[in-house]
């Protein structure tokens, strides 16, 4: 059962990632990424990380990717990207090195823990309780720090994305000399 789900999900996952890469339209890329994130959530369930599976869906699929879509639509950047690669050698090198990296890592996994080794015994008890216990005891300080981080990020986003407001200088609105921005069609 476990293995069946994995073998269904793994090709979907990798396929979605590859398709995301190949899509010329940003919206489709985002959708394939959402699909990929779903498969990851399934993997998390397979790995007994129920809480994180839920968080994965809520945070990534539910919030982050919607934000992406929102920005894509808001800016109207869903036009297709040109296929010509302007930097010489970039594409070939990138794919070649990427394959090299993947091969290296897979090799490392094979050498390190063996490809077919079964996992250790599943931890007993409720996953949520276990995560909560560790999160609010050992990691309570980092946890509080993340709240500060999120507040800072929220403020930063507001400052960055703000249009001119009450006489404050705006980072975005000063057009560079000699390059008037044309309005988005």
């Amino acid at each position: 059962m476990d293995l069946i789900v994995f073998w269904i999900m793994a090709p979907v996952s990798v396929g979605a990632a590859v398709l995301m890469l190949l899509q010329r339209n940003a919206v489709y890329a985002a959708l394939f990424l959402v699909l990929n994130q779903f498969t990851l959530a399934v993997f998390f369930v397979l790995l007994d990380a129920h809480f994180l599976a839920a968080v994965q869906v809520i945070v990534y699929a539910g919030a982050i990717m919607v934000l992406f879509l929102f920005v894509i639509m808001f800016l109207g950047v869903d036009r297709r990207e040109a296929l010509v690669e302007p930097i010489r050698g970039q594409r070939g090198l990138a794919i070649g090195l990427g394959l090299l990296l993947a091969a290296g890592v897979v090799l490392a996994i094979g050498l390190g823990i063996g490809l077919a080794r079964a996992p250790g015994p599943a931890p007993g008890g409720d996953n949520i309780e276990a995560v909560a216990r560790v999160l609010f005891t050992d990691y309570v300080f980092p946890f509080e720090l993340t709240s500060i981080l999120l507040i800072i990020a929220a403020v930063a986003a507001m400052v960055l994305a703000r249009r001119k407001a009450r006489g404050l200088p705006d980072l975005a609105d000063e057009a560079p000399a000699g390059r008037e921005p044309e309005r988005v069609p």
Partner: protein
Amino acid sequence: MTDLIWLVPALPLAGAVALLLAGKPLRRIAGGLASLLVGASFVVSVLVLIDLLGVGAEERTVAVKIFDWISVGSFEAPVELRVDPLSMVMALTVTGVGFLIHVYSIDYMHGDPRYSRYFAYLNLFVAAMLTLVLANNLVLLYVGWEGVGLCSYLLIAFWFERRAAADAGKKAFIVTRIGDTAMLIGIFLAFSTTGSVRFDEVFGAAGGLASGTATAIALLLFAGAVGKSAQLPLHVWLPDAMEGPTPVSALIHAATMVTAGVYLVVRAHAIFEASEVALGVVAVVGIVTAVYAGLSAIGQDDLKRVLAYSTISQLGYMFLAAGVGAYAVAIFHLVAHAFFKALLFLSAGSVMHATDGVIDVTRLGGLRRRMPVTAASFAVGGLALAGIPLLVGFFSKDQILAAAYEAGRTGLWITGLVAAFITAIYITRAYLLTFEGEPRSELHPHESPALMSVPMAVLGVGAVLGGLLGASAQTGRVQRFLGPVVGEPEAHAAAGALSEVGLSVIASAVAVGGIALAWALYGSGRVDWQALRARFGGARRALSRGFYVDDAYGALLVTPGKAAASFSASVLDTRVVDGAVNGIGRAFVRLAGVGRRLQTGLVRTYALAFLLGAAALVLVLVVRT
């Protein structure tokens, strides 16, 4: 109470810090605050003194360690204050006279745009001087020493808008720096030979030093003293220092700065005594300076410059005393001098205040009727300076001359008498030209306000009654109090042909003679001194320019120095130094022109480099396992 000694320098220092940081808000109370702090410092000093008097004479040396400052290997220079009779006498003089000068300044500097900064510097000056006299090691002493130098620079050049003031400040700083450098080398030498900078160890080891080394250390330290105390040949800064506000001159001449040299020689007398040569040099420099400066003083028309040369001359006396081993007498003369010279300066300041800055004695005259208090103060100070019996200057000067005579140095004694004679002449001349006779210009002077005249009155009382503190070289209170530090005054009254009383009579007679001569020339009206000036123009000019020493320095040092500086600025710097720098810069620009091609400015290229590195790392890991 002794533990609180740190308050003595700390209080004025705190005042300086507060006034420097918060000068604007504190402006209205700056003068009062600064004076109060110095006053408080004086009170603490008195309390410590009372403590000190309560214990036996041998236990009167206490070291109070504040904190560790420099501690490197065997080198220990803690911030440690020394409480002993010598430092207490100095501290009391500094804080006491300093306090009066502060009070005087409140009115004198009233309305100055940099009022609070003035008091900040003044406080800092006092704090530095107190650090100097209270230090228990040579390094801390040097800190105070340089602090005093810095403050003198700041205060002499206080009205830096005036070119003369700015130049005078620089001159004071640079000239004393020559002596300071020598002194620093002396401190190094003392440390390298004795292994310590603490007074007890350095001076304790002085007796065992090779005479050459002792001479070297002593002379190097003495060079510092010469610079600070404006002795020949480093005296040229002091007359110019008159460009500063008059209370500053008073402070420099009476309480702080110039007395530091005398203090140093007395403090380090153990080293000087280890070397006959050094002591001889001290005495000779002192007496030569005394005569030279006295003669120059006669030639001055500027009242303050008269007083400046007078100070140089009197400091020469002190060095003479130190040079013949009469340290306690030297310090006593220092204290006495602090009183009457501060008094004279404050009187001169009062005159200046009244005449809107006119200080040329040839243009003054007849001021006594308009300014009786000032005139009386100046007269008392002048008489004390001239050494008229029963005033404080009489006792101290008499004791110096007696010490010289009793030490068997008749030559020094006679020269000292000459100097005393000259002293009487120039101070009488200054008084007569300023306060007596008819006014020689259209001025409307008026008596100074209370805050100025009261300190003058207090100092006047000091100048009159100060003699009670040290009426005799053997039994005077100050001398006995200083005894444990500088050695008991020896009673060798019978060494010469003349008795002590005889010496006093001779000295008094010389002083009176000088006054009489000056009166005959300038006060009696029987001699037309202006005609004499015209007749002996060349000699007068020589006197007024201090025998052209300054001009000689200018010709011999300053002019070639300027030429060398302008050569290195225009040729060496622009061609060689700038050329090298620019050449290196140009080379790097050219080199970078090649390297910058790597920076495409495209993020993705950089990311590719990331990937290259990551792949390489993974492969290395795989290969290694």
